[in-house]
């Protein structure tokens, strides 16, 4: 039984219509394959990160459990699901109204354009559908060979380090997330990066490579690895693990890097897609009888939220703001240096560069640079943004500030390193006994202590020797270590 069906009849016609508008507006994308499916299937796909086939793991089951429940209780609904592949797959919920499908299609074309054109997606493997399926097959094979529990436990451990990757890897000239050549695959189905690592020692057989690593003086290794933020890769290459384990690290790393561009462009991506669904629907596709239904859905998506900023809303408003500023010439030296407020408010040089500008921005920016460069005081005030902080006295979160500078730096700080602490390798020969020392590059926010301890335990499982991390807790420099038996903390002056 197929869980998804291609578009037919009315919906196929609608797709052609929306596709026409999207192309007319200058959006470009890989072919978009729409499929219709029921809610259960959308939940399955969403739980799997959009993919029909993943490796077996309980966390997908947990995700599914929650999505499914969310639907049953009616407080959560997935409208659309689109996957960054070539062709680009998008799923429409069969129970959606016709006007919803219109909106979703337009929204999806926005995403598809972003996937194809944004620089941070340039190294993405667009055949991820196959890669994910292959990873699934491989892990199942390992499970047959080494036992389900053993493999699952190992995956659980490695998932602890899923966020220890380096986003700059995405734009390195030799970023190797591209699909491998067909013939390469036949010879060697190990994960891409493990293969390339082994391959770099060309002409040597693998035991020699391992030996070489062992013989490599550890302090020399330190020079090489110090400062590396791609800790997944570091572990894959230098941790004393078996080959199948290194392979699993490698392919979980590949998957993590696949999802990374979406994590660092959330605001832009959603903003861009929302901008286009709004533009296409209100200017072209909506019939007058559908306006209320559309407005209802659209405003739901754009709702403000006190606890988190809504990326859809900030994104679309910022794109619109930029378009307006570049249309009226409210940018550049003249405008910024003008100190006549009336003149500034009525500024209009009819530059009409707005559309061009936003296309340019969607090509090269990510969320951080997007906010850093285009988030202005006027915009900030219009969006009613604020920062909040936990007040230990009242035991609740309270609004802290409505100052532009505070908000901007808070936003940037939340976006830095996709919202994760920056952790890098400091030494692979700490205390001169092969211990691993990581460094938390403290940027004002402390680590969660109990989670840190648990992560160190997991790291120890893989590194098999002592693991430590330098960080700051409430202003005091500390080294937290796990030696295989217990967690210890040493404060430093």
């Amino acid at each position: 039984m197929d869980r998804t069906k291609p578009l037919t009849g009315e919906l196929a016609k609608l797709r052609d219509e929306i596709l026409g508008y999207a192309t007319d507006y200058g959006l470009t994308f890989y072919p978009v394959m729409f499929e219709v499916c029921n809610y259960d299937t959308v939940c399955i796909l969403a739980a799997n990160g959009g993919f029909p086939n993943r490796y077996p793991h309980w966390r997908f089951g947990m995700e599914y459990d929650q999505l499914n429940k969310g639907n049953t209780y009616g407080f959560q609904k997935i409208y659309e699901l689109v996957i960054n592949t070539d062709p680009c797959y998008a799923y429409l919920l069969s129970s959606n109204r016709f006007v919803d499908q219109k909106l979703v299609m337009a929204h999806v074309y926005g995403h598809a354009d972003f996937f194809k054109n944004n620089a941070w997606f340039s190294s993405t493997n667009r055949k991820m559908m196959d890669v994910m399926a292959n990873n699934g097959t491989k892990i199942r094979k390992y499970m047959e060979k080494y036992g389900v529990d053993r493999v699952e436990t190992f995956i659980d451990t490695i998932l602890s380090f899923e966020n220890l990757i380096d986003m700059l890897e995405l734009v390195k000239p030799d970023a190797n997330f591209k699909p491998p050549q067909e013939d390469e695959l036949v010879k060697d189905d190990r994960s891409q990066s493990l293969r390339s690592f082994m391959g770099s020692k060309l002409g040597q057989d693998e035991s020699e490579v391992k030996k070489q690593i062992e013989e490599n003086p550890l302090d020399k290794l330190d020079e090489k690895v110090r400062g590396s933020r791609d800790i997944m890769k570091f572990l894959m290459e230098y941790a004393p693990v078996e080959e199948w384990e290194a392979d699993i690290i490698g392919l979980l790393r590949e998957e993590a890097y696949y999802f990374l561009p979406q994590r660092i462009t959330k605001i832009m991506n959603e903003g861009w897609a929302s901008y286009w669904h709004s533009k296409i629907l209100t200017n072209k596709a909506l019939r007058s009888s559908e306006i209320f239904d559309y407005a209802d859905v659209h405003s739901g998506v754009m709702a403000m939220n006190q606890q988190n900023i809504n990326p859809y809303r900030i994104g679309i408003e910022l794109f619109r703001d930029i378009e307006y500023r570049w249309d009226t010439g409210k940018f550049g030296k003249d405008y910024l240096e003008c100190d006549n407020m009336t003149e500034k408010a009525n500024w209009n040089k009819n530059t009409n560069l707005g559309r061009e500008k936003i296309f340019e921005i969607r090509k090269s920016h990510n969320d951080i640079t997007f906010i850093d460069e285009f988030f202005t005081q006027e915009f900030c005030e219009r969006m009613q943004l604020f920062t909040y902080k936990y007040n230990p006295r009242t035991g609740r979160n309270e609004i802290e500030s409505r100052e532009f500078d505070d908000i901007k730096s808070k936003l940037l700080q939340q976006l830095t390193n996709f919202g994760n602490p920056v952790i890098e390798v400091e030494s692979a020969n700490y205390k001169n006994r092969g211990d691993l020392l990581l460094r938390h590059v403290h940027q004002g926010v402390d680590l969660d202590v109990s989670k840190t301890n648990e992560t160190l335990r997991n790291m120890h499982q893989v590194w098999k020797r002592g693991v430590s991390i330098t960080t700051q807790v409430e202003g005091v420099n500390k080294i937290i270590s796990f030696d295989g038996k217990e967690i210890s903390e040493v404060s430093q002056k």
Partner: protein
Amino acid sequence: MDHPIKRDHARFRKIIKGKIRDSLKKYISRGEMPIPKGNGQFKVPMPSINTPRFIFGDKSQGGSGQGEGQAGDPVDGEGEPGQGEAGEGEGNKELDVDMSLDELAAILGDELELPKIEPKGKKNLQSTVDRYTSIGTVGPDSLKHYKRTYKEALKRQIAMGTYDPSNPIVVPTKADMRYRSADTKVEFENSAVVIYMMDVSGSMGDEQKEIVRTESFWINLWLKSQYKDIEIRYIIHDATAKEVDENTFFKTRESGGTLISSALKLCKEIIQEDYNSSDWNIYPFHFSDGDNWSMEDTNLCLNILKEDIIPNSNVFCYGQVESRYGSGQFYKDLSTAFGEEHEDVILSKIKNKDAILGSIKDFLGKGK
């Protein structure tokens, strides 16, 4: 075939059950009870099973939001923006896991190694249930079993040599048709009644009642999983006894003296009036802090127990909740009268919340 995620889901459920089992003792002693949802399902709150990562501490981080308000105003409102992008959810929420009564009872049973209860073998009602568990050669089209049908056809074609692997077309004939068919199973319908008696005199404080409440929840859960029908009656007593509903049972606080015999008398009457012991499995539970007004009354109690209650019940259970004021004398009296190892009388002391689990095992561990 079902989507592989169903297997992931089953795996997840298994892990969850393991977690609940591991922390069952904690749940029970903390009095955190699964919340019944009405359809035979229970909601079990549990800490989510997040993978540990290096992440920012929650409280020192703060955040940014959108909306009205001035500095110092509390930030409220929860929830996600309208749509969700797949593959990114960090899932920091607490998990609410749905468990059916049977699943929960199975966990309790496994953890405490509870034996299955042998219902009293007297006139158990029998009923027949049809379950589609077998395959037949005749039946209506709506029950046609395609896979089996094609298997039969394939077997026949291979046997006859008409099957061509290069052109694998299998055509079932009438003789190949297979249908789901019903097996008739006899199910025993057995009914049980649990009669809870509790001393609500002044010496039983809130903590003692909380213990009784927790304990009765798990006992009910187990008995419900063992019997098809179950009725629960509640009796409170101080110097006099009355029958009440569940809510009143756990809320009432009286003062004054304690005549345990009053409750046992009422219990006896209830059994005589409503529950014929040859049709019903009867479980009287009595909880008190062990203080009785006089030895005279205690003797009266022993009489009622011996003459009426014990002969009619599966087992009589007495749980003594320790309190600051209670002397615990009643337990001693019962154990002198019946001995610690009596067939049909189970005595258990519950010192504090941590002892609840052990006491449940005392009561249910005999499989009666």
